[in-house]
């Protein structure tokens, strides 16, 4: 007897388990696929072979329980993992082994997950393509000449290539939703305060949130159930009830009010993306949702506001990397000050330096009011626009990105052009609102495109319900798969207990 293991979904893992395939064998299948395809795709920067196998054996021996029992997962490399390298894809944290697990990591492990490894990202999550990683870019499984997006690009690749059904990312300006969209996946940025940030290497503390990247809305809901909730170690993790996010998934969109900021889509959006977006709106309308235009007059300023606020916070957060306490230190220094400067010069890549410089500038005497304070005031106006819109509609929808995946190298020398690709995602971080990206089809070139839903504070459930209903109608994830996943799904694994070692 042999069968394929469908590692796209948690249900796929459950089916394999029900057929008698052990966690050890599922783990072997994960690493076999990674061995076969990840040399080219570069989803992972570290593979936790030994820890994963030990954990799988433990689950096989003692029985697995919990919502993620025996489910292999991947973690973005800016999440602290105890005694497992955590570098944020930066040279300055080369070989750094944290002494503790992030709260999110602890919760995932307690729910039964098996950590397969750490995924590639833009250095300190600063970027939209993974090209700012110290270990080189990840490649999009749908077209390896293209970026998977970023900064959580490796996490998206690990799921899109069929290595693991769940990957965790972080989202400061779209870093979960954009790679999910460009890789044909579901990506959720929870409400600011829904998920503890303890153990996430800080980039923009008022913007960062941790969330899942998965093939299906249901799996995103399952993961949010596990990671959400207050944490004594993070004062911003709000103590409000965490509902069962899977409960409303089968609901319909009938009667829901959907707002489209049409004004915002007039310029700069690729024609193919707009066509798919309009088709998705039409689909939702036919299912009973009402659709109206909403005005977000300050959303056009979201990019400059974001890059002023995020870099200011980054310049402060990254002051701690000075060669004293973590990872890398320059060997070419004779005094303490020289050691700080040289360590930071040799340890940080160009984009991180650029952002530290920009953030330092906008916080410096004489520029603070004109840039930083002004940006914070416009941030208030952006949030007010949404609050006004949510008086009339339940969700605001727009494309997740203005284009499908761009070619590697296309924007890397032009930081401003790279920043502009975040035009639809940064508002959710500035306002704190939850936002979900779900696949909404393919361009004529076969590249996936995402539909973004933004909801009221702490109403992730509404987003998941609409996303789930849309997914049931369209089932994009069943229509096409990237080549590596197709090959993996065609390979058969002997059952039980005879997967390749």
């Amino acid at each position, binding site marked *: 007897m042999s069968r394929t293991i469908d590692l796209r979904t948690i249900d796929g893992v459950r089916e394999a388990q029900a057929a008698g395939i052990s966690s050890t064998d599922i783990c072997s299948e994960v690493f076999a696929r990674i061995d076969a395809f990840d040399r080219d795709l570069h989803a992972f920067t570290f593979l936790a072979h030994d820890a994963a196998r030990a954990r799988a054996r433990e689950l096989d021996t003692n029985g697995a329980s919990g919502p993620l029992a025996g489910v292999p997962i991947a973690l973005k490399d800016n999440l602290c993992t105890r005694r497992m390298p955590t570098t944020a894809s930066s040279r300055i944290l080369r070989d750094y082994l944290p002494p503790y697990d992030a709260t999110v990591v602890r919760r995932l492990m307690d729910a039964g997950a098996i950590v397969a490894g750490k995924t590639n990202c833009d250095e300190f999550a600063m970027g939209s393509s993974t090209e700012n990683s110290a270990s080189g870019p990840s490649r999009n499984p749908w077209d390896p000449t293209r970026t998977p997006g970023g900064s959580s690009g490796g996490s998206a690749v690990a799921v899109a290539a069929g290595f693991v059904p769940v990957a965790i990312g972080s989202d400061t300006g779209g870093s979960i939703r954009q790679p999910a969209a460009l890789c044909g996946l579901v990506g959720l940025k929870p409400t600011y305060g829904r998920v503890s940030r303890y153990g996430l290497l800080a980039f923009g503390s008022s913007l960062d949130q941790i969330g899942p990247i998965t093939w299906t809305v249901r799996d995103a809901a399952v993961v949010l159930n596990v990671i959400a909730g207050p944490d004594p170690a993070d*004062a911003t993790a709000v103590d409000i009830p965490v509902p069962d996010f899977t409960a409303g998934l089968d609901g319909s969109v009938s009667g829901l009010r959907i707002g489209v900021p049409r004004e915002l889509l007039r310029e*700069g959006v690729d024609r193919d993306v707009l066509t798919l977006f309009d088709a998705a709106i039409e689909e939702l309308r036919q299912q009973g949702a009402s659709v109206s235009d909403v005005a977000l007059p300050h959303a056009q300023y979201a990019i400059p506001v974001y890059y002023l606020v995020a870099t200011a916070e980054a310049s402060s957060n990254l002051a701690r990397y000075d060669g*004293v306490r973590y990872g890398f230190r320059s060997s070419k220094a004779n*005094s303490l000050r020289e050691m700080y400067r040289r360590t930071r010069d040799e340890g940080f890549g160009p984009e991180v330096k650029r952002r530290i*410089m920009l953030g330092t500038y906008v916080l410096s005497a004489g520029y603070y009011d004109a840039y930083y304070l002004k940006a914070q005031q416009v*941030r208030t106006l952006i949030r007010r626009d949404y609050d006004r819109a949510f008086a009339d509609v339940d969700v605001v929808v727009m494309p997740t990105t203005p284009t499908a995946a761009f070619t590697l190298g296309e924007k890397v020398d032009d*930081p401003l*052009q790279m920043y502009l690709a975040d035009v639809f995602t940064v508002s959710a971080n500035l306002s*704190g609102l939850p936002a979900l990206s779900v696949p909404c089809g393919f361009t004529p070139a076969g590249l996936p495109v995402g539909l973004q839903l933004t909801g009221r*504070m702490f109403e992730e459930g509404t987003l998941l319900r609409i996303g789930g209903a849309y997914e049931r109608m369209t089932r994009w994830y069943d229509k096409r798969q990237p080549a590596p996943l197709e090959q993996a799904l065609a390979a058969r694994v002997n059952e039980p207990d005879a997967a390749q070692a």
Partner: protein
Amino acid sequence: MLAFRMPEILSREEVERIAALASLELTEAEVETFARQLGEILEYARRVQQIDTSGIAPTSHGVSTAPLDRADDPQPSLDRASVLPGAPDPAQDAGLFRVPRVIG
């Protein structure tokens, strides 16, 4: 539409001043590149200055409720022995981080 090239608004001296504030040692080439790129980004960012924000309070974070205080009970924190190995030059026996000479 956005492929403009504005005149740079950052001088080399300003770039060097900021680098010093940020404890970054930049090469000549980096100073050159950053003066141009940061100038372009700031030129773009200046559009926020057109907006009338008189009387608008700044938003510093997205938390909509009061931050959560935990009970002020002493808790064990990470112990030195587990933290020091992450440093580039730990003095394990002394329980300290070793750094280069501070005073000439």
